[in-house]
Structure formats: structure tokens, C-alpha cells
């Protein structure tokens, strides 16, 4: 068996997980990163904390998960957690974020709306795809650093980020934009965003499932993120299954040393019809089950070899709903708590707040 459930730190950039305030969740498509992001937000909101869950790709996946109407570009409460904690959600709309931005820097809100009618804003984000990312990460940074009455508005911000294939580009905004926009306010803005992203208050978590491609992409993304100096958090193995078979039978079956003859006596004793044919069919299913498990276990070892804190979330039966999210949140809470370090919230970030002037106006409740 691989290193299941082990939760340890290794590697160069070590985010302080319990006190990290910006959690960026990425993963290959189909690994359930939106679900993991939502569960993480619920886990972080336990005990009366306030958490913002941010959607970046305009898919309305968060609204679907929480069974609410599509989210506007506005911070809306989607769930209440234990002890009066709350999760608010925000679906970032790039056009709106650009309008905020024009308003902030040039007092151009009304003109901006006219530009949108012309399709000019679509065009602007199309000729400079990095602009999209800067606007989104800029909005995220604003939420992370937003303060009211002398303290942070959100204890944590969780981002349902673009997939692993695009994550470094998404977060490495300065690199991308400095190629295109070598000066101007966008450049200054992205520098400010990078300061937050590269700090220990940020943790980039990678969601994978136990299949070749997702595990390979996770390894690639870790290497890329490390090179870009971005702090890596944990690897979340999602939709993990438990073997039904006892351990010794599992290895025998995986080696193909199990046949219908092993099952026949007990089946006959229980009075099941079908005889040898049934026993052989069941044995074939058991062998397949064991081989699938063995293949997953080999991948589990590969995940362990990445040397990152790892947490496994089970495959839950039935459709995903709020109850399932809370169940997954429970599983994420332990690793969050038992890890070293205290939740010294709000200290590390305060020093950076002098960049307040760069913040685009928030769609709801800007800085005091």
C-alpha cells in the first residue's frame, strides 16, 4: 500500500497551511477540483470563520454544487458552516472586473459600458489573454487583502482555479503580461498580485484522481509551480475507493491466483444457483477489482513520491450535494488542524496592505 493519509511537508516553498489565507485549487479537468474547492471552503469556515469561494472560469459550477441560482458578480452567501461560519461565493466576470478597473483608474465607468456594447472589451481580453488573468487575480488579491474595521474581511479565500495545464500561466501573471504589456498600470497591478501569490500566505493545492494522466499532470504542474516560485500546498487525491477484499486475498487476486474453485464451496453452501459458472464469473470480477486496485495503488505511490502533504477524499455514492460537501469538508478539516503551526491569522498580511491604492473597487463592500 502506498502512503495513504500521510500528511507531511517537503520541498523548498513551504506554505504555512493552517495560516494560509489564499487557497488556490487546481487539477486536471474531471478530477473534481470545483468540488474540492467548495469542500475546502466549508472546512475553513468551520468555527465561525468567514470564507470567500471564487469561481474563475464562468462555468457556474459553484452555484450548481450549492444548488443556488447562477451567481452574479457579487459576493453572495451560499452556505453556513458550523459555529456560525459562512461561505460566500463570487463568480468573477472579466468584463465587470475590467469596468471596475477603468472606473478606478480613469473614472471611465460610463465610457466603459459603451465600449462593452461595441464588443471592444471582448476584443481587449482576446488580444491580450493575460489581461483576463490579471483582472481575475487582481480581484482575488483585493478580496484577500480587503480590511474593514481594522481586520480582514475574509479569514480565507478559496479559488476554484483554471486546470493544471494552465495554472502556472494563470498565476504567473507578470511573466505573461510583461511580454505583452511592458509598462502601464496593468504591469504595476500584476506586480502587486505576484507579491501576494508568492508569499507564504498562499497555498496552491492540486487535485488528482488515481489515473495516469492526472497524476502525471500533477507532477508536471508541481515542477512548473516550483520553478515559478509559487508556494505549493497539498495534493488532494479525490474519488479514492477502498478495496472490498481482505488484503491477502487482494494480492492473490491481483496476481491472478484466484479462481472459481476458491469461491464454489461457500457459494454452494449458501444455496446459490449458478454453480461453477457463477463462481468463475465472480472470480473474474474479483480479479479485475484487485487489478484495478493494484493499478491505483501504484499511482498512489507515485503521488507519495511527489513529497507533498497528501490527503485522500473518498468517492461518495450518489450525486454530489451539500450533504456530500460537508462530509468531504470534515475529511479536510483534520489535516488542516493537526498540522504544525498556529492559525495566526491576519499578521503576515498586514504589512502588505500599503498597496491598497492599487486595489480595484470591489463589487460589493470595498475597502473601508
Amino acid at each position, binding site marked *: 500500500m502506498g502512503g495513504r493519509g500521510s500528511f507531511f511537508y517537503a520541498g523548498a516553498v513551504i506554505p504555512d497551511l493552517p495560516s494560509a489565507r489564499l487557497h488556490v485549487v487546481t487539477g486536471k479537468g474531471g478530477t473534481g477540483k470545483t468540488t474540492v474547492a467548495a469542500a475546502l471552503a466549508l472546512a475553513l469556515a468551520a468555527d465561525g470563520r468567514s470564507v470567500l469561494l471564487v469561481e474563475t472560469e464562468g462555468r457556474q459550477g459553484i452555484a450548481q454544487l450549492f444548488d443556488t441560482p447562477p451567481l452574479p458578480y457579487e459576493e453572495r452567501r451560499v452556505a453556513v458552516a458550523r459555529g456560525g461560519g459562512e461561505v460566500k461565493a463570487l463568480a468573477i466576470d472579466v468584463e465587470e472586473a475590467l469596468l471596475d478597473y477603468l472606473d478606478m483608474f480613469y473614472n471611465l465607468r460610463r465610457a466603459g459600458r459603451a465600449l462593452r456594447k461595441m464588443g471592444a472589451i471582448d476584443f481587449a481580453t482576446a488580444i491580450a489573454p493575460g489581461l483576463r488573468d490579471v483582472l481575475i487575480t487582481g480581484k482575488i488579491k483585493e478580496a484577500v487583502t480587503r480590511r474593514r474595521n481594522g481586520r480582514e474581511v475574509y479569514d480565507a479565500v478559496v479559488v476554484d482555479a483554471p486546470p493544471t495545464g494552465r495554472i502556472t500561466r494563470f498565476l504567473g501573471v507578470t511573466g505573461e503580461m510583461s511580454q505583452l504589456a511592458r509598462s502601464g498600470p496593468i504591469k504595476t497591478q500584476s506586480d502587486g498580485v505576484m507579491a501576494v501569490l508568492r508569499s507564504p500566505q498562499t497555498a496552491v493545492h492540486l487535485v488528482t484522481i488515481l489515473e495516469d494522466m492526472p497524476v502525471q499532470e500533477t507532477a508536471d504542474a508541481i515542477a512548473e509551480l516550483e520553478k515559478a516560485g509559487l508556494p505549493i500546498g497539498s495534493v488532494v487525491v479525490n474519488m479514492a475507493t477502498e478495496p472490498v477484499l481482505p488484503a491477502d486475498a487482494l494480492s492473490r487476486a491481483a496476481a491472478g491466483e484466484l479462481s472459481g474453485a476458491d469461491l464454489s*464451496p461457500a457459494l454452494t453452501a449458501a444455496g*446459490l*444457483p449458478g454453480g461453477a459458472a457463477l463462481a468463475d464469473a465472480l472470480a473474474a*470480477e474479483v480479479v479485475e477489482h484487485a487489478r484495478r486496485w493494484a493499478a491505483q495503488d501504484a499511482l498512489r505511490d507515485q503521488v507519495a513520491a511527489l513529497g507533498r502533504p497528501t490527503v485522500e477524499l473518498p468517492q461518495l455514492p450518489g450525486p454530489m450535494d451539500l450533504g456530500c460537501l460537508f462530509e468531504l469538508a470534515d475529511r479536510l478539516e483534520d489535516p488542516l488542524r493537526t498540522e504544525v503551526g498556529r492559525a495566526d491569522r491576519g499578521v503576515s498580511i498586514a504589512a502588505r496592505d500599503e498597496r491598497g491604492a492599487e486595489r480595484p473597487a470591489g463589487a460589493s463592500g470595498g475597502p473601508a
Partner: protein
Amino acid sequence: MDLGQLIADPATRIVVCCGAGGVGKTTTSAALALAAAEAGRSVVVLTIDPARRLAQSLGLVELDNEPRRVDVPGIDGELHAMMLDMKRTFDDVVTAHSTPERAQQILDNPFYQALSSSFAGTQEYMAMEKLGQLRAADRWDLIIVDTPPSRSALDFLDAPNRMGRFLDGTMIRLLTAPSRTGFKFASAGLLFFSRIISKILGGQLLRDISAFVAALDTMFGGFRERATATFELLRRPGTWFVVVAAPEPDALREASYFVDRLSAEGMPLAGLVLNRTHPPATTALSATRAEGAAEEVAESGGDTAALTAAALRVHAERMQQAAREQHLADRFTSAHPEVAVRTVPAAAGDVHDVDGLRGMAEALTGADDDTPTGTPRTRVFPARRG
């Protein structure tokens, strides 16, 4: 759906495998290519983003953006495989249609570099471009194309046109060449917009785009025409689409959109491949009875009781899973009764070698009812009797 017959038919020249990301389009493409080569055809498979081990087993280690012959013993035909390098394909287009100096000018342009490596849609555009090139080379009698792993299967059809429209669009021209167009046509709003864009992004970007568009102008006949030409290729007789999905709600929803779209475009659909299904080895014992029997066996004690009870539980789970998968397939079929379905059982691990591909090819092209379990290959679970 008889995929075996389809790929063996000399009239079939292009097969496009599409579907949502992560459903096994690449392995499906490679398995079909192998089956076609075994049927005696000369095949090239264009993969987009193969898993590393699969790529290695197909000999795709050198990234030279050209097809390489895959050495498979005992096949009648020929199998070639390649992996798309989108930047290189774009560079080749530029180089092929330009003088060396001008090509260098474009290749060095920062806007071009961003466009060819990171724009949404470039991969789809270049996949189409490469398909066009392979077809024009006429060295193979069958081309099998894997499609980029975008969230939406429709992107493969839409992105190239969208990008062509954008690059040929009025706005990019007006914006980048106000002097040429003159004030007569450029509205005050547009000039204002141009000012804002340079404010936000810095004037350098606009100058880069200007230089890029000017260099392109003299180079070749428009991005849009190029994209349209390849798009038309997909409508020609001899082209078939295979939609791939996993037995999951999201993947099947994508498949549905794509099927509707193909029919609207008048593009021929061979059918739906439902990949990674879990048909039970026997359906003689229901999930409920298996669970009951598991309890009974466990209580009875005895040497093999624990193992047998576990085996019965494995079977119960398997029956439930298969029933869920069949239910999803049925929902798809009731919305698209005309679309043939072929199920491909999940392998125990990932498919990453020629043997694995051969197993998959058998599931894709084998006779409908010639299965070890007796469940036809069109289904995960046998139809209810009576």
C-alpha cells in the same frame, strides 16, 4: 455501428474522435488506427496530448511535428503516429508562406509569440491546419484525428473560425491602422477605445499587433479563408465523426451537444463510443441477492467465507455501477435514438501499450454480440427480459 467496417472501407479517409476532455479520445484514436492498420490500411493518427507512456509506446519521443512509423509486428498495413506541436505548426505556416526575412520578422514579434503559444483556440486551429496538411500530403489512405482536450467538444469546430474571424476582423485592422483607414471610417468611439487599450496595455502592444498584421497582410490569403477551407474538408464524403464519452452525466451532456451540432452542420456521425464502462461478468445474480448472500456467507463462517462474502460484495457493487451506467446511456439514447452506441469496458489500469490498444480495438470493432459475458457491445447491462 460497425466501426470495424467503417475503418476498413477504402472510401473512409478521415475519422475525427471528439468529446469532452478526459474521456479517452486519444486512446480511442490510437486503438482505431491500430485496428485500421491491422485491416491493411495505411494510417496516420494525429494525437494532441497523449499520456507519456502511451506516447512512448507509439514511438512519439521525438517532437518533430512529423508522423513517425510505429513498428507493430504482424500488421498488414502501416501505422504512423504524430503528436501535434501547435507552436511549430504555426511557425511552419508562417515560414511556408513568406520570404525568410519577413518570416523572421513575424516569428520575432511578441504578439505573434503570444498568439502561437497561449491563445485560447490556437490548439484547435492548428489541429485543423495539421489535418489539412496531412490530407494534402496524400501519403496515407486514412487519417485519424484526436481533438484537443478542451472543456467543450464544440471548440474543435468553433475555435478555428472564431480565431480566423478575430484575426481578419475589422476591429483589429481599424485599431492597428488608423492612418490607413482614415478618420472617415473610424468612429470617435473606436479611436477612444484605441486610446484606452494603449493606456491599459501600454502602447507597445498596439505597435506589435500593427507590425504583425502588416506583415501578415502581404503574406497569405487571410486566416479566415484558411480555417474555412479545412472546415469544409470535414464535410466532404469520406469523413466520419466518432463521439467519445465516459458514462458520466457531464461527458454525456457534452456528447449530446456535439451530436446535435454535427447534425446541424450536416457532418456524418458514425456513433457514440461509451468508454470505460463496467459490465459485470455475470448478470445472473442481482445486486440485492448478492448482498443478501454476502451476509449469509459471512455468518456461516468456514474457510473461504470472508473471501466469498467479499466477492459477492464486489459483484453487488459492480451490478449497481453497471445499472447506473446503462441508465445514463439510455437517457442519451432516448434523446438521440438515431445514434448507434458502442461500449468499451474499462481496462484494469490505463491503456499505455500496443497490447492495451489491441484490447481496446477489439472492443471497438468486434462483432456486436460476440462477447464473453453475452451482453451485446451496444450495452453495459443486458436489456430487461419480458
